[in-house]
């Protein structure tokens, strides 16, 4: 008779099945290669059957297989994650390159267009007999050149000092925020008659121009927070003013243009003159 007294046939065979899977204190265990072969499906049928039978009865090997299996799964997951995260920057970098090329192309076109229009405006002004207008035209032409050539790289610093869109309430906000487009003719018009223009409009047109030159300001949320009064002191230059109030010497043409009605041929106004400066740029 069996080692216990079963009450029924089912009890009897349940006991047999239970004993069949009772663990054995093996002295020898499966080598690591067998575990890996089992996980990778590289064992032949007989090797696999033997390994599985051993693992069924040896709790040490079962534990090792379990740990190895988890480890392989974890590594696989990490690998998949690293591949996924490596793909994204490559894609972003590539799309950035495409965008840069497109922006460069557009900027080039816009620069050409602006310079051509500015030149035409200057020629138009030169034909007039007014000396005042002549000197002003020359100054405006210089500014146009500065804006189209010098500003785009300099504005990168400005972009870092971003302010929120809500701070911007100029009449040409669509241009400033990028949903509108500044035409070259508008800039020429501005250069021709800055004294007739509200300062906000000047600033908006300027920002629009910067954007067209390849500097998408609002993509990083950068713009003037506003304009404020400043009284020229001894020793001030456009560069020092830009450095002190805008964070970069390279941004001086913005101040010049914002005060074009005062700056004449581009010189800093006399000490004591009140000019407009872009107010602090909030991060």
């Amino acid at each position, binding site marked *: 008779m069996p080692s216990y007294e079963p009450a029924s*046939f089912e*009890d*009897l065979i349940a006991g047999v*099945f*239970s004993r*069949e899977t009772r663990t*054995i204190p093996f002295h020898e265990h499966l080598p690591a290669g067998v575990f890996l072969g089992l996980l990778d499906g590289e064992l032949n049928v007989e090797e696999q059957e033997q390994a*599985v039978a051993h693992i*069924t*009865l040896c709790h040490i090997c079962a534990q090792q297989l379990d740990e190895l299996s988890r480890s392989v799964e974890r590594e696989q997951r990490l690998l998949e994650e690293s591949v996924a995260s490596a793909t994204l920057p490559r894609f972003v970098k590539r799309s950035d390159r495409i965008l840069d090329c497109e922006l460069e192309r557009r900027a080039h076109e816009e620069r050409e267009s602006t310079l051509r229009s500015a030149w035409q405006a200057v020629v138009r002004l030169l034909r007039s007999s007014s000396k005042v207008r002549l000197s002003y035209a020359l100054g405006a032409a210089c500014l146009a050149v500065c804006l189209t050539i010098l500003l785009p790289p300099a504005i990168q610093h400005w972009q870092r000092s971003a302010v929120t869109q809500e701070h911007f309430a100029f009449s040409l906000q669509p241009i400033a925020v990028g949903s509108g487009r500044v035409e070259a003719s508008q800039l020429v018009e501005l250069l021709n008659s800055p004294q007739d223009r509200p300062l906000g409009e000047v600033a908006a047109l300027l920002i629009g121009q910067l954007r067209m030159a390849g500097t998408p300001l609002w993509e990083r949320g950068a713009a003037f927070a506003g304009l404020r009064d400043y009284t020229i002191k001894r020793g001030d230059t456009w560069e020092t003013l830009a450095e002190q109030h805008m964070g970069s010497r390279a941004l001086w043409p913005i101040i010049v243009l914002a005060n074009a009605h005062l700056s004449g041929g581009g010189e800093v106004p006399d000490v004591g003159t009140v000019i407009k400066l872009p107010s602090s740029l909030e991060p």
Partner: protein
Amino acid sequence: MKLRHVMQERRVMLWNRILQGNPPSEEELNHELLSYSRDADEDERLAVALLYACSRIARGDSEAMKRNLLVSMLCWFSAGPRAEEKLLPQPLGGEPPRINEITGLNLSWREASMLVGSNSNDYSARKRLLECLQSTCVEVWRGLYGGSSSGPFGVGLSHA
């Protein structure tokens, strides 16, 4: 390592083959187990005879009985101390589960049915399987170890 343990390991291999749908033939079983079991104790003989009987049913013609056998084996092999971290194997479609994958899961008849790809609510199938298995076990026992009695498998033969 004791011979008993070697033979237990061999039998687990053979049980797995039944679960995997590749039951060993009578000749294979004779070659692997017969001479050993004749000199073994009662528990070992019971295990060998049960393996012969299950293998015979698994090689039989009745698909329903084969399926019932698989379901029952999954239930019996999965009984035992609860395996907290184990997940239920995927239902059949890929490879059928092996013993080490189900131990401690304490599968119900319905869960085991789903694992072999059937959705049986026919709980009388279990009774039919038990009757078939018991008669086969008695037959096998007589064939392997002689005698005219039903041997240890005749226990509670009220429904036999």
